[in-house]
């Protein structure tokens, strides 16, 4: 019986893109136990929202995550619209869904590149990220930004889509589908890639259900669960799409599920652009005071269902905003799924849930600690600093 060795990884480690702490117990090369600790990215956003009005909250919540920023605003706007009893114009819903699906494409492509990189297949990484630009360009063109799109608003979206933009997006779909089919082929037929991902990070269907996992991670374990179908929102009830599942229960399955999901996204974008309704894209009048009540809103983000719970007390500011990002639901299961694998498989097994820790840790708690010389800049101080800086260096007066 070999000796059990404790192997800590993180919060800062080359295989991690964001801070999280893993503790593995290993015997030789085999992992026999795993625990995780999160909270290194906690920013207190839920508490901050209690002190802002709904529009300000939207911009705070957009900054929960850099990759799926549109997910959080969509979920929050949907919850607020429910509380307001607001009917969003059809065109607004379609445009919102368009950005949702473009975002899913870019997020999954980003993940596929990272996954290839984690197993040392950097050629695929570079090819995938080159193709991701096909999606980033229209996102930038229709929203003005590559990261935080600021596309949603309560009651619809902030920008309309021109005919020229519509044609541009339509033009990228077929080349993209061709590339995705090529990647699906590589994923299932390239022997060295397959050898690195098949049988790694096994999570059985029963366990996936028991752990309440979500998104592509759950679907790759054969769990037929997708909130676009189960809790219909945005324009999804009007669209035809397949929920992609796979029975492989390992990283191999997760690669295939994501690649095939992207093909479905391309088809959905085509449906949206072909049937884009005419008319308004945002509700004309939205009350700033939101009637008292509670609302839960589901949204299928690229990583799984994103849930926002909003309680209004009848004023301009929410009483409580709660965000459940999909990574939190998957992380514990991912951590367990590496037990039985080899140490070299840890990066790809953990990366296979597409973890996003800044989504998972939201809420700051910042303490001024004079003893150790750390201090926190308040919002007022930061604002004043900005004003002074511009006055000094740019001669601008506010």
């Amino acid at each position: 019986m070999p000796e059990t060795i404790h192997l800590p990884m993180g919060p800062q480690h080359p295989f991690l893109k964001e801070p999280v702490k893993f503790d593995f117990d290993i015997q030789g090369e085999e992992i026999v136990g795993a625990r995780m600790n999160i909270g290194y990215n906690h920013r207190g956003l839920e508490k901050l929202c209690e002190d802002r009005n709904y529009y300000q909250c939207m911009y705070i919540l957009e900054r929960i995550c850099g990759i799926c920023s549109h997910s959080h605003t969509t979920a929050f706007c949907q919850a607020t619209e429910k509380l307001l009893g607001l009917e969003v114009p059809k065109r607004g819903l379609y445009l919102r869904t368009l950005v949702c699906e473009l975002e899913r494409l870019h997020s999954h492509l980003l993940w596929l590149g990272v996954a290839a990189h984690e197993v040392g297949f950097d050629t695929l990484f570079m090819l995938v990220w080159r193709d991701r630009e096909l999606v980033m360009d229209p996102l930038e063109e229709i929203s003005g930004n590559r990261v935080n799109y600021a596309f949603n608003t309560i009651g619809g979206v902030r920008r309309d889509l021109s005919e020229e933009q519509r044609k541009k997006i339509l033009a990228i779909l077929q080349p993209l589908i061709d590339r995705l089919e090529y990647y699906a082929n590589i994923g299932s037929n390239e022997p060295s890639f397959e050898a690195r991902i098949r049988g790694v990070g096994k999570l059985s269907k029963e366990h996936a259900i028991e752990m309440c996992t979500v998104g592509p991670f759950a679907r790759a374990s054969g769990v037929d669960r997708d909130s676009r179908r189960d809790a219909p929102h945005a324009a999804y009830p009007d669209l035809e799409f397949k929920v992609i599942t796979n029975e492989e229960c390992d990283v191999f399955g997760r690669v295939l599920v994501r690649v095939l999901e992207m093909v479905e996204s391309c088809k959905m974008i085509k449906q949206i652009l072909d049937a884009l309704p005419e008319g308004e894209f945002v509700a004309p009048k939205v009350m700033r005071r939101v009637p008292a009540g509670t609302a839960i809103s589901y949204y299928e983000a690229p990583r799984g269902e994103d849930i926002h719970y909003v309680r209004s007390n009848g004023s301009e500011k929410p009483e409580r905003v709660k965000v459940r990002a999909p990574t939190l639901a998957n992380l514990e299961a991912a951590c367990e799924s590496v037990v039985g694998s080899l140490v070299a498989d840890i990066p790809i097994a953990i990366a296979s849930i597409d973890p996003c820790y800044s989504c998972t840790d939201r809420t700051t708690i910042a303490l001024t600690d004079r003893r150790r010389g750390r201090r926190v800049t308040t919002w007022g101080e930061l604002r004043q600093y900005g004003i002074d800086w511009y006055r000094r260096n740019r001669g601008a007066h506010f």
Partner: protein
Amino acid sequence: MVGRDWESEVKAVFGEDNVSRGADGYFWVQIGPQALRESVAALKDRLGLTNLSTIVAEDMREHYLLSYPFLGGIVVTLQVRIDKDKPEVPSLAGTVAGAIVYEREVHDVMGITPVGHPDLRRQVLPDDWPVGVHPLRKDTKLPSGSME
């Protein structure tokens, strides 16, 4: 899901008076803390809902409120009132393994103890955070400093 009369099914399980339905079709069920475990078992056995989405903790000033949304073909949210004098709730860790992380979070930010939880270490708060200070309680004054 079409073809199934969810409203009467949910009401048959939890009683007519405890169930309300929002404009979006989501169900809200009021239960007591002692009925939590059997309600979750009933959701699983009689309605087929096993996917706990999250646990939301709220400070309602007179009492605390925990909400447990479940997603299947429908959304059913169990709401449990917790007395401020005794901030405890039975843990679901034994029946729903996915509840472990959410209960830890609730314990951190609102100070409600899930009784029977196997591993109640800190999750969101830093290790040097003072004991007994729960940031999302409305009456919490943060020690030694300000938070804007």
